[in-house]
Every structure is written in C-alpha cells, then in structure tokens.
C-alpha cells in the first residue's frame, strides 16, 4: 500500500517537474517572436514611466535622487522611479539575476564594462544605436575613446559614463614622519617605489607600504596589476585581437615588481576588514577618486601616477579607468523615455553635478575646461581629470569574467603567495585566456 501511495505521489510530481522544465524551454521559444536576442524588437518610440537603478554609495545616491527629481518635475507624464541597486555580493550578480528573471529596470547607472559581454550574451541589453543619433551623441560627448565601449558587432550596448582613473594615493603625514618628500615623493619608478616602501615600513610609520586587496575575486586585478600594466605597456589592454598580451616584457616587469613588494612584506597578504589606507595600516593605496570621500577627515593625502620601470611622471601615464557605464536593459518597455532620460542624465549640467557631488570623472571630452571652476576650487582633482584622458578599459571579449578569474588565480598563486614563478604563471594564464576568448560566447571553440 505504501508503494501505491509513493507511486501516486510520483505520478503527481513528475508532470509538475516536467511541466516546469518544459515550460522554461517552450516559453523562451514562444516569446522569441516578440523579443529577439539582445532585446532589439522592443519599441524605441514608446514613452511612459520607467525605473532606474543607481549605485548605493551615499554621494551617488544623492546625485541620483536630485537628477530624478529634476526630470520628474519637467516630465510628469514620463515619471522616473530611481532606487539603489539591490544589495548582493556584487552588482554584476544582481544584474545578471534580474536579467534572467526579466525584472531589471530600464537603466542601470552601475554597469561594469567587464560584464557587458555576459549581459549581451544573455540578451539582456538594448543596443543604443537603435535610437536616432545615439552613436554621434555618445561619440560627441566622450570623443574617440568611446570606441573601446563598442561591442565586437560595432554597436554600443553601454553608454560610457564616468571613470575613476586608478592612481597611487599616499599619506602625507606618514611620508613626512618617514622623512620622505610629500610634494614630490619618489614613487615614479619601480626602484624608487620599492626604496620608498622599504623606508616607510622600516621606519615604523606604517605596517605596510601598500595594501591592495589580496583576495581572489575576479575584479581585484584591476587594482594591482592592470593599472601598472597599462602604464608599463603604454596603454595596452589585457587582450588584443583575441590574444592575451600580458605575457610580455611589460607584464613580467609588473608581476616582478609586485612579487617583490609581497616577498618583502611591504604589501599585505591577509584579507582584512575596512580600509587599510584610511586607518593608517598602509601608507599608500592604489585606487580611483571615488575613494576620496572615505579619506576625508582621516588622511591628508596626495596622489601620483602609478609607477613604471623607467619612471612615470606627469599626468600622461596610462592607467585603468575603473569606469562604470549606463546600459539600457531588455525588459524596458518605454525605451524612448529611457533614452531621453539617459541623455538628460549625461548632459553637461548633470555631468557637472556628478563631478561636484561625487568627485568622479564624467567621461566627457575636455572636462578640465568645461568644469574649470570646479577644478579651480578642487585642485587635488586636476590629476584625476588629466589622467581620465589616458585610461584604458577592460577588453570587451567572450567569457570576460572567466578571463579575469583565470588571471586572478594565476596572479594570486605566483605573485601574492609565491607558489609559482610569475613568468610561468603569466604564460599559463595567457594560454588559457587565449582559448577562452577564441571560443564563442557560449564556451565552444
């Protein structure tokens, strides 16, 4: 009798499960007619209310709120509802899940360029070129550097929005205590940087000279290897023409430099809570201007470009952009409103407010001239503005996140923990990455 009841349960449960599995597949294909891959079949003329997400740091929230309020006051029939991006381990995870569920908003002001290939593969992004004049608007605002944000099919699935050129911050108070110049600190070349780092630690002013996060998340190499590689290689991306570039003299020099810092305990290897630069544990940080608010009232900081073998001086040294862009997502119904709002939010006025309220660099040509009064009042930000013109981006390639994870694992094993020679690790990672970027976006060769 028990067997009979178990059979009955199975008979009831099986169709449920199969219907659910089958439902997932058939619904995808039956809806294909109304919405093709990449969401291109939605109307680019529809207007009405839309939702947007922006970052959850206090400054960007304030900027987002005022921007939405300004728009809504002028466009009551096309109301925009803004909210902070939901919390999770990472924004990319939230956005990816929202795309799958079809619950993403029209616009997200926190789209990482590294995730764009994945979101595109998911059919979650709307190509902006579908709107009349979009390409010229984007290129007119950002200049020719906007081209790096085009996908391999030549379309813009993201609007270049703001950059955070990664530079070396230093603690003037600790430098002074260690007897190091605070106006022209010797940090231009690797040898100078290493000598300064040793002096800082041996004098006891800081436990570590610098403390980039040593953890294994895919994006952590954007804050140790990549800015220095950009500088050392003269602005080369990690992958060019579907081939990894970093297994070259520049990549090896950068790896050897960081390996020395770790081997001599000048850089911290432990995962820590909090900001080691803000609390004085490390005398330097490698980060962009978004972090300035974290240091206010805690650190009297100065900023210099990232070092190179021969010495990097001035404000022409390439570095990593750490950009966050705006993308339009496939669930968006009122796409014309979304596009008009996107243009409104990247207008000279709103770009100026973004700069003023967050200290982050709008990706607009000639920001030093356009916002001259801001830079006059905030001279410390001039360096970032100058650097913003020389940033490089993460490559827009297949399996982008996996590429960065492979690189990070190799970096962690060799440079941070010294379990493999950096040269061998870079060569191994390059071979793996070549395969990943040469396979199609679904992982097949």
């Amino acid at each position, binding site marked *: *009798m028990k067997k009979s*009841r178990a059979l009955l349960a199975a008979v009831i449960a099986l169709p449920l499960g199969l219907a659910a599995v089958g439902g997932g597949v058939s619904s995808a*294909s039956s809806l*294909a007619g109304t919405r093709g891959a990449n969401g291109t079949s939605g109307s680019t003329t529809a207007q009405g209310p839309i939702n947007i997400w922006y970052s959850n740091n206090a400054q960007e929230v304030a900027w987002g709120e005022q921007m939405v309020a300004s728009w809504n006051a002028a466009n009551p029939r096309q109301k925009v509802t803004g909210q902070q991006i939901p919390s999770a381990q990472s924004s990319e995870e939230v956005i990816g*899940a929202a795309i799958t569920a079809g619950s993403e908003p029209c616009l997200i002001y926190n789209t990482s360029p590294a995730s764009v290939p994945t979101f595109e593969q998911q059919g979650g992004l709307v190509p902006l070129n579908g709107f009349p004049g979009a390409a010229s608007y984007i290129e007119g605002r950002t200049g020719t550097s906007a081209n790096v944000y085009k996908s391999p099919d030549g379309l813009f699935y993201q609007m270049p929005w703001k950059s955070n050129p990664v530079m070396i911050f230093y603690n003037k108070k600790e430098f002074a205590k260690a007897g190091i110049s605070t106006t022209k600190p010797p940090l231009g070349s690797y040898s100078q940087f290493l000598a300064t780092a040793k002096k800082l630690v041996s004098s006891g002013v800081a436990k570590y000279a610098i403390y980039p996060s040593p953890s294994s998340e895919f994006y952590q190499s954007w804050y140790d290897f990549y800015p220095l590689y950009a500088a050392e290689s003269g602005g080369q991306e990690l992958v060019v023409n579907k081939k990894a570039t970093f297994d070259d003299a520049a990549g090896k020099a950068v790896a050897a430099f960081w390996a020395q810092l770790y081997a001599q305990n000048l850089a911290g290897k*432990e*995962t*820590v809570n909090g900001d080691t630069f803000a609390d004085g544990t490390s005398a330097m940080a490698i980060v962009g201007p978004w972090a300035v608010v974290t240091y206010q009232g805690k650190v009297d900081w100065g900023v210099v470009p990232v070092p190179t073998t021969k010495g990097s001086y001035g404000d022409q040294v390439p570095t990593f952009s750490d950009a966050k862009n705006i993308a339009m997502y496939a669930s968006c119904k009122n796409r014309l409103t979304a596009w008009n709002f996107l243009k409104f939010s990247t207008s000279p006025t709103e770009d100026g407010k973004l700069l003023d309220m967050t200290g982050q660099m709008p990706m607009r040509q000639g920001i030093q001239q356009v916002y001259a009064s801001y830079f006059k009042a905030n001279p410390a930000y001039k360096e970032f503005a100058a650097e913003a013109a020389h940033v490089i981006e993460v490559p827009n390639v297949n399996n982008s996140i996996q590429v960065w994870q492979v690189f990070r694992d190799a970096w962690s094993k060799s440079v941070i923990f010294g*379990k493999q020679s950096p040269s061998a690790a870079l060569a191994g990672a390059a071979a793996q990455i070549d395969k990943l970027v040469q396979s199609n976006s679904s*992982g097949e060769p």
Partner: protein
Amino acid sequence: MKRFGRAVLGHQPIGLIFGAPYAVFIALLFAYPLGLAVWISFHHYFFTAPGVSVPRPYVGLENYRAVIDDPAVRQAFLNVAVFLVINVPLTVALSLLVATALNAAIPFRSFFRTSFYVPYVTASVAMVGVWLFMFSSGGVVNHVLGPLAPVPVWLINQNWAMPSIAIYVTWKSLGFFILLYLAALQTVPKELYESAMVDGASWWGRFKAVTIPGVRQATTLVTILAVITGANLFTEPYLMTGGGGPNGKSTSPVLLMYQTGIEQNHPDFASALGVLLVIGVLLVFGVQWFLERRRT
C-alpha cells in the same frame, strides 16, 4: 474499486489534502530545481533574459567531463574532505561533551546554554569579522601562541586555511548541535545511570556505556547535518579567505559553483558540479547507513 481507492488513497484520504500543501512546496522549491539542475547539467546552457531563444543542445556527459578534468574542482573536493575530516568528529565530540555537561546540575546552566547558542544565531558576516581579527598576524591567537604561531599566518597559510575554517564552523554551529544532544539526553532513562553507578561505573564508564549508546540516533542526525553543512560550505571561504585563497586551498565546490554559474554564466558546468556534489553526499550517507545497519 473501493479496495483500489483505499490502496491508493489510504484509510484516511483527507490526509492527502493536509499533506498536499507541503508536497507542492517540496515539488516546487526542491524537486523542480533539482530536476532542472540535472537537466541543465546534460545540456549546453546559459542564463538568458525571458523570451530570448537560444539553442540548448543535449551534450551528454560533456559538462561532467569538464568538471572532472578541472583541477580546481578536484582541489575543491579535496578541501571539503579536509574540512569534513576535522569538522564532523570535532562537532560530534564537542557538542556531545558540552551537552552532557550542560545537562548536569551546574551553576548558571541557562546562561551557558544561551551562550553556546549565540554564535549560531549571529550573522556570519559579523562573526567572520571577529575571527579575521583574532586570527590575523597581530591577533590574539598569535599573541597567545607566540613563536608557535604558523608562518604565514593562519588564513593565508596553505596548510592551515581550511582547518581554520573547519574550526570556525565547528564553533559557530556548536550551539545548534548541543541543542540536538540536549534533547536526546532527556530521553536516556535515569535508571540506566543509577544502575551503572550501583555497579561502580565511573563518570567515563557511564558516559561510554549509557550516554553514547543512548544518543546514537542523535549522533547519526548530527553527523548527517554536519556533512551537509560541510558540503554546502560557501560563506566562510568567501569571507574569511577572500574567495578560496590562498591559492585555491580553501575553495569549496559551492564557491566554485557560484563563480562559474552565477559570476561567469556557465550554469551547465555549475549544475554538473552540483549533481556530483549531491552524489558525493549521498555516498557518504550510504556508507554511514551501511555501517549503522551492520552495527545494529
């Protein structure tokens, strides 16, 4: 017909109605995702927006081969084995001993019972923050150990990272397992202890001859739950060792599933890994069940 109906629906058909909501709950939230995961693991699959039509061809065992060939997966299973070897015996031994102590008439018994339970109900993020501080190079643990402290320090030491996580998880979940043993200890007849005492048995003798056999079923439950906890390990390596470091020595299979399935959008690979993990856990239970049956 009536007999058939009774055979299928049982003596009290209304029971099916009462049980149906939970059956539906199980079917939707457990059976369906599990079935879908198995289906995905045999197909080429990635997450897409609703309405996006992409081919999802059947690929047979290709995803399983990719999982088995991946050295990171093998390392993750090895890491979890290290975790289980440390965590499960430690959990069983400590929770039984502490529960026995808390079951005795000791002063401040309620206070101690609550104290052991607090870490279990406290957010992992907060607890991990404290442990990171304690096990850092300048932390209290290294201060106490002095020259005996490992170099490099615990959580960035290839040999100590996973054992450190196992010890942390043991400590954090101890309160829950103590609770299970406390409940089990209430069912051990007092007369057995009295008889043992009359026979001159020592504390250890009573513990060995009365307590341990008396809570055998609870021990089985504790072991199963501890194995499940270990197999699902994610938060601790993610937070304590910065995503499975050093050099992948604390990566768990679930952390790899998160990286490949969620971050990298390869749910087919992640599902195959998940299915293998489920099979692995079932094998552990199978062995345990077999040993239990032989003993009884």
